[in-house]
């Protein structure tokens, strides 16, 4: 491989990445900042591919650039407009001039000092040859993990605890979002061109989610990437102004939201009852159990990300009926 060419490529890529990060934070126009941040995320996906991390690259492109961008853009859209251009009459927005020059310089210097300390520590760590105990242990035990993609093996087998707790974090965040208010109102029905695109895009996204889930066992992919792709299908339907975006209602929604955590826990507890360690799969069953957990996790992740995009509990007929019942009871008292 041409080393010089690669070095030039790295230089250009990193220069663009830093430039985009800088530009997305330097502008005072929030919409512009968010769009630059999405471009930053896409270039990061290229960087992860360059550093031989295709699993992370897929997740970054789908979540880091795609869904985060959609969430932030929707938030910019909802933001109350300032009364006059340039002026912010919102106490959430301290005026830029209020932060004095001195504070700016102190913060800049402290941030630079932090970067210097980090860099110094890293260079110190790089100067010793890596022992690679952990990667070697993974390579030796990969055959017994039930999958051949080492990243999936780490996520769903060797460090399954982390992933279980991560799904719990996702569930917690969506419960927090539910408690903060109802879902945002839907969008206007899309025009014929966008509607035509949606008809093509949504089935392709669903198919791709299924493929990513299946292929994650032996190649880049897995529950996270699949879940994000599935959520993207729902986001596209929402943006097109459809009333139904694929989310189940009422009790079924709760089942889907908690499926990842509950299936994970059930598998772990069943194994405990059978006398194995918690989440210590028997090698013969590992592949099937991982696929089962990943399928449930994909559905939960997709539902969570889509609910995050809605920004609250969707108003389903069941919820409305319950709310009405509650109101009647209160009025009766």
């Amino acid at each position, binding site marked *: 491989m041409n080393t010089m060419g690669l070095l030039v490529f*790295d*230089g250009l890529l*990193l220069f663009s990445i*830093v430039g985009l*990060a800088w530009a997305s*934070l330097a502008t*005072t126009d*929030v919409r512009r*900042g*968010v769009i630059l*941040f999405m471009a*930053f995320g896409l270039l*990061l996906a290229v*960087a992860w591919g360059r*550093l031989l*991390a295709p*699993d*992370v690259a897929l*997740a*970054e492109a789908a*979540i*880091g650039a795609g869904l*985060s961008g959609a*969430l*932030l853009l929707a*938030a*910019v859209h909802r933001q109350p407009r300032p009364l006059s251009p340039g002026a*912010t009459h*919102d106490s*959430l927005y*301290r005026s830029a001039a209020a932060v004095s020059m001195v*504070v700016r310089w102190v*913060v800049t210097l402290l*941030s630079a000092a*932090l*970067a210097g300390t*980090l860099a110094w520590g*890293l260079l110190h*760590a*790089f100067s010793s040859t*890596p022992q*690679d105990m*952990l*990667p070697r242990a993974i390579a030796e035990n990969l055959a017994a993990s039930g999958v051949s993609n*080492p990243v999936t093996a*780490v*996520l769903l087998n060797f*460090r399954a605890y*982390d992933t279980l707790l991560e799904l719990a*974090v*996702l569930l917690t*965040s*969506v419960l927090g*979002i539910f408690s*903060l208010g109802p879902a945002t109102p839907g969008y206007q029905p899309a025009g014929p061109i966008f509607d035509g695109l949606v008809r093509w895009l949504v089935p392709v996204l669903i198919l791709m989610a299924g493929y990513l889930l299946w292929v994650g066992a032996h190649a880049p992919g897995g529950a*996270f990437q699949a879940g994000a792709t599935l959520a993207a299908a729902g986001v596209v339907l929402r943006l097109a102004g459809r009333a139904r975006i694929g989310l189940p209602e009422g009790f079924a929604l709760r089942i889907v939201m908690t499926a990842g955590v509950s299936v994970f826990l059930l598998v772990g507890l069943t194994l405990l009852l059978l006398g194995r360690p918690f989440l210590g799969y028997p090698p013969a069953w590992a592949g099937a159990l991982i696929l089962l957990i990943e399928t449930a996790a994909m559905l939960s992740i997709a539902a969570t*990300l889509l609910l*995050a*995009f809605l*920004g609250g509990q969707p108003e389903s007929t069941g919820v409305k009926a319950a709310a009405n019942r509650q109101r009647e009871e209160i009025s009766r008292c």
Partner: protein
Amino acid sequence: MLTTQILYALTGCMIVALGLRGALLHASVLQRIVAINVMGAGVFMLLIAVAYRGPGLPPDPVPHALVLTGIVVAVSATALALALVRRLHAEQEDD
């Protein structure tokens, strides 16, 4: 010591600093949320650079799994932060 690894790791440090500065100095809450996401991306770059072992060699999968987890946790935290912002705006409009 690999040039590529050092190049990407140092860029990661720079992005962390840029994000931290933005998060502390920005007036708009939405831009602070973007800045925190940028800072997170810098940390991810550090981890992926640490995992890199050179062309043709398999990288360390543990940092990759950590970053994957991190990306998903970051997006859920961002969503929660945005929901909080929306609620804050709604409360202010009521006043």
